[in-house]
């Protein structure tokens, strides 16, 4: 269970350029929920994600994960509870490290790191089995540098890395936005598969209204730093793009990219 209570975030606070990004967000996320988040540019989608991951601190409000108040925790400390996949496929891994080294880094997320060798044959065996299920042939390329992979392959690997160690919530930040449609489709399928397999609580920011409606079991719409629409259960299942359009046309949905994606 994850709770956000009265979260306020202002960029450039205390300067003439002050810009509110989140204005009193309250959100309770139950274990096992798969939430999609949509909203036009500047609505606060990414800020919401970054507040949970710890990359952005909040001016006011508190965040609890599994009854622990994590508000003052750094990103690194929160990584014991939070895993994430970035929008940019290059951001989530180290190009100059090998596939197995990147996986070893992710495998130790949330655990203290000591002087034991980062890799051993037991781990390699486990990584090979995990990668084989992707059917990308990566299981035979463990010692290849990640920089040699395509964007789609790297994003698939980022997803695997995010699910390698246990987490209370998985954050996906428009993680298919930088990919071509076919690869995006593949990554979305892989996401659904991994989330189901590991029973992950997930928060996915997306630029595509179609994706937001089709995936997950709860939908949030953000507008100017506030949650203006929250549909779960049957409401979410029966929700269509047209419902959203008729309800918010001319208001929150002025951004064409939401419809085109």
């Amino acid at each position, binding site marked *: 269970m994850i709770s956000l209570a009265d979260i306020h975030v202002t960029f450039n606070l205390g300067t003439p350029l002050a810009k509110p990004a989140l204005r009193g967000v309250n959100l309770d996320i139950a274990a096992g929920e798969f939430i999609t988040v949509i909203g036009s540019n500047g609505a606060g989608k990414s800020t919401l994600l970054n507040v949970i991951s710890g990359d952005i601190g909040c001016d006011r409000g508190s965040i609890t994960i599994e009854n622990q108040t994590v508000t003052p925790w750094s990103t690194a400390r929160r990584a014991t509870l939070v895993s994430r996949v970035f929008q940019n496929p290059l951001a989530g*891994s180290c190009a100059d490290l090998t596939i197995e080294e990147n996986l070893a880094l992710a495998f130790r997320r*949330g655990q203290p790191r000591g002087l034991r060798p980062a890799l051993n044959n037991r781990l390699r065996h486990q990584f090979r089995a995990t990668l084989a299920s992707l059917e990308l042939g990566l299981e035979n390329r463990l010692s290849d540098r990640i920089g040699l992979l395509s964007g789609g392959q790297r994003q698939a690997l980022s997803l695997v890395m995010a699910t390698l160690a246990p987490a209370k919530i998985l954050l996906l930040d428009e993680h298919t936005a930088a990919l071509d449609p076919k690869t995006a489709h593949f990554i979305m399928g892989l996401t659904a598969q991994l989330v189901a397999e590991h029973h992950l609580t997930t928060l996915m920011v997306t630029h595509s209204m179609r994706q937001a409606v089709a995936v997950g079991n709860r939908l949030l719409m953000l507008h100017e730093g506030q949650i203006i629409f929250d549909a779960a259960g049957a409401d979410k299942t029966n929700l269509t793009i047209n419902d959203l359009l008729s309800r918010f046309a001319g208001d929150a949905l002025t951004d064409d990219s939401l419809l085109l994606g």
Partner: protein
Amino acid sequence: MSLVAFLGAIETGLLYGFLSLGVYLSFRVLKFPDLTVDGSFPLGAAVVATLITKGVNPWLATGVAMAAGALAGLCTAFLSVRFNILNLLASILTMIALYSINLRIMGRPNVPLLNQPTLFDGLEKLLPIWVILLVGLGLTKLAMDFFLTSDVGLAMRATGMNPVMANAQGIYTNRLILLGMALSNALAALSGALFAQVNGFADVALGVGTVVVGLATVILGEAMFPSRTVRWATLAVILGCLVYRLVIAFALNADFLGLRAQDLNLVTAVIVVLALVLPQANLLAKLKRN
């Protein structure tokens, strides 16, 4: 080149090998441009010379010198990660401060170590100094390989390559920068401490250009022996060190070139430029196009 000059070059190369491994750690692993070594190299020499002349055991004195170097590295890293001072500037500040501190430690600009006990005393009768240094450097390289392929070491490499990703993987990047900079400058100080004991003096001006030497050897090693794995990369750094010293010795000894000792820095700069430019295979094509 005479055998004496050749062995002298090898010996100096091995002495600076520890420094080069340190520079590899800061510049290449952490991507932290660190000029502190210009101060921590003579710091190691100053501490060891002062302690030995005061009657301290040379092994202990060398250990203290390394600790002093680690402290200098910590200082630079602390200025950078805690106070957000630009990393290059933070290292320059520590370097400048160390010049005064080294003078304070020695009490004068130069401390001779002639007829004083050194770390090599017992060993020297059994083996030539260059063999002792080679063994020491080899062990240091193996320890570094072990460290950089461990969980912490891998986290340190990720910190240098992609700090945002490292953070998201639960890596406390600031702590690893502190640790890496301490190790790096401890190695630089060790280099200085050994230099003082082999050459029989410590001098406050010993550090001038140290960082350039360190960088030159790292770049030269990488250019000659390109490698992706840590084990080969550290070996390349050491080989770069030896080749660098041999090239310098050759350049200064070859009469037909007419170079003298005062041309050392010029030769160094030329070597670094060559090491950076020659691996660009398309250089000729580029020149033709222009």
